[in-house]
């Protein structure tokens, strides 16, 4: 089946009023980015919907495969075009319906006759085309209310446009339409999911990761890069900041009592993240914290950790159960990456008995004996920045 264009329907954007065109423009750019390597694709956006054309048939197929991952799209449908004559429309209708499984499905025909010169009126057309389709697909059942398949025919001056299949979009808002934030990306299961949910709400992200070489390996670093790359597949590039954290962690271990060292570690990480946030012009910090999941995620711990900054900290998973988080991780494809077994900086130095209810004053008191500031500055200056997705050359292509 050869499609002439794709009709893209907006999600929540369509609820927007006077500032709608800002969101539409963002979505259009994101679609363009997601399809940047498809040379023949042309995008035309209107107030209520967007159209996508591709001369190359394979590129059209590829666009259909990628659009379900772009936030801000409610759904989209491939459109076939033909001459606006009854015979041509009848013939095209069979092709459009035949492109998919029909057995046992309910269906109806909907005609919009914008070009009023067309000889048959809407009702006659619906009847004529509906019965023609039924003759060729006897297993279809006609149903007016909520049918499985709506064959929509739009008759305009430039021709007739037919659609039937509806692909689900990812919903949400176009990434970047709701500002920029810093995601604390550990390599576990939760933080990528938190990043995904914020991206779905239109937030673009820079990710920050703490590495403690030589205790953590290059593989742990690769794992976080793969996670960030996965996130970048949801419609916007992701910059990953990898902070060298070894020196600070060793300082904590030697200066702060064991049972609060974890709290101090988190406080310093948050301070660093906040400084990077400021440098990058981001507004908020996103974490994958979920209440009560581990010692650092009790309300007492969150209070003690949060005290180092007044920037908004967004915790989209705070009230989500672990099993539900795992479900999302599996759907978005980060789970398989997150469960790779490499040690991260938190697991290596974690104390056996961290306090679940640390007292803010006590933690601050223990920290006051060490000047962490120069170490923090140094770590930020020495951070490694990786732009994802990586444009890497394929070492394996020749072998396979």
């Amino acid at each position, binding site marked *: 089946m050869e499609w002439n264009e794709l009709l893209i329907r907006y999600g929540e954007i369509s609820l927007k009023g006077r500032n709608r065109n800002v969101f539409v423009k963002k979505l259009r750019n994101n679609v363009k980015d997601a399809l940047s390597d498809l040379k023949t694709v042309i995008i035309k956006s209107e107030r209520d919907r967007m159209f996508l054309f591709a001369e190359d048939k394979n590129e059209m197929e590829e666009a259909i495969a990628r659009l379900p991952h772009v936030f801000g799209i409610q759904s989209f449908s491939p459109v076939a075009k033909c001459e606006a004559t009854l015979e041509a429309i009848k013939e095209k209708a069979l092709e459009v319906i035949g492109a998919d499984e029909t057995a046992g499905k309910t269906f109806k025909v909907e005609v919009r006759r914008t070009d009023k010169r067309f000889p048959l009126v809407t009702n006659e057309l619906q009847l004529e085309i509906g019965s023609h389709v039924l003759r060729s697909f006897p297993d279809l059942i006609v149903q007016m209310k909520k049918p499985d398949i709506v064959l929509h025919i739009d008759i305009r001056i430039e021709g007739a446009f037919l659609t039937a299949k509806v692909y689900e979009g990812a919903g949400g808002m176009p990434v970047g339409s709701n500002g920029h934030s810093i995601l604390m990306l550990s390599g576990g299961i939760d933080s990528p999911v938190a990043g995904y949910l914020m991206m779905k709400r239109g937030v673009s992200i820079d990710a920050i990761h703490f590495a403690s070489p030589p205790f953590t*390996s*290059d*593989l742990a670093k*690769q794992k976080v890069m793969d996670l960030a790359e996965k996130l970048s597949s949801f419609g916007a590039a992701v910059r990953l900041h990898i902070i060298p954290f070894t020196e600070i962690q060793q300082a904590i271990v030697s200066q702060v009592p064991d049972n609060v060292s974890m709290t101090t570690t988190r406080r310093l990480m948050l301070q660093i993240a906040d400084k990077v946030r400021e440098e990058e012009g981001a507004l908020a910090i996103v974490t994958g914290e979920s209440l009560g999941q581990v010692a650092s995620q009790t309300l007492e711990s969150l209070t003690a950790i949060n005290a180092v900054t007044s920037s908004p900290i967004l915790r989209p998973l705070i009230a989500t159960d672990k099993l539900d988080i795992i479900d999302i991780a599996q759907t978005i494809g980060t789970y398989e990456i997150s469960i790779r*077994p*490499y040690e991260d900086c938190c697991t290596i130095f974690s104390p056996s008995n961290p306090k679940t209810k640390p007292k803010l004053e006590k933690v601050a008191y223990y920290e006051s004996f060490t000047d962490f500031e120069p170490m923090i500055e140094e770590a930020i200056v020495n951070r490694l920045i990786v732009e994802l997705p990586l444009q890497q050359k394929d070492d*394996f292509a*020749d*072998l*396979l």
Partner: protein
Amino acid sequence: MIYFDNSATTAPDESVLTSFIEVNKRFFANPASIHLAGKEAETLLERSREQILSILGAPNGELLFTSGGTEANNLAVIGFARALHARGNHLITTKIEHPSVLHSMRHLETQGFEVDYLSVDEQGTISVEELKSKLRKDTILVSIMHVNNEIGTIQPIAECARIIKENSRALFHSDTVQSFGKLPVSLSGDGPDAITISAHKINGLKGSGILALRKGMTPEPISYGGGQEKGMRSGTVSVADAVALAKAIRISATDVEQKDFRQWRNRLIKFIEQFENVRVLAPDKAAPHILAVAFYKVKGEVAVNFFQENGITISTSSACSSKNGTMGHVIEAIGVNGKFNNGVIRISFGKNNIEQHVVEFEQVFARFMELLGRGNK
């Protein structure tokens, strides 16, 4: 030498050999290791897996690398019989399967499973009606080969798949060792649920094969160890073999039906049929690259030797059964007349053959007939 024994094995493709050597040099690490070298090997292994599955039309399917067609067939038959035992203990196969399927079935019979062996007509084709009548509520596995290795008969596996799906809950495995690369083979749509492919039949390397499965299908293991391949096939995976196989599969999938095998086969049938006391087996329903011929009162071995002396390598009905001297089970199953059944030879084309080879074969064949005193009809 003209090599007409490509159903026994093929010459490895040059680029497949290059890949094998390169991977052994550069990515020799164990793909299960967590260090960087292991990780690289694993990535390469998974890329091979993805490539093969996508060519087979099942990008979400499962793929197990094995030591060849025999192990893959054993794993399919015995592994699925064990895995699905709770559902029933009845299996169906045909009388003309490769020994790796037949003997696995016989083994299962000693373990309390019940097996029906479908008979075939004189062309080697099963009857789908018989298949339908043998399917039961407790049938758990049907294994039917796509193309027979001795006489080339193509079985109607798409129709079999449909009948099995409509009439039972059984899983459908097909041994596609002889058909892959010659006929369209796919795990998508109305194809089988599991297929076997062997590398060395498609210009790959010996000691390498796959069992490819639709999504979510898991046989019980038949060998035990480190739990590689999701626990279904233990043993360190040979990444180099996997890559070489992925390459051989890619090359042969794009080559399907490009050679003039069918035309050569028709030409030879026409040529051979002008002689007396010679018969072509399965003339109408066979794969393009296999031609089996039976001589009256002449041993196959004699013909093989004569052709050998004249520079042409052919084989008796199959390499597996050619050494033990008794009549093959396939020849028995298709009911070849007693005076013919010892004299079956097999000519099988491969991609190194050219039309001139067929011309030369005809000349030698004519001389052989003359020697036996069997002129034109």
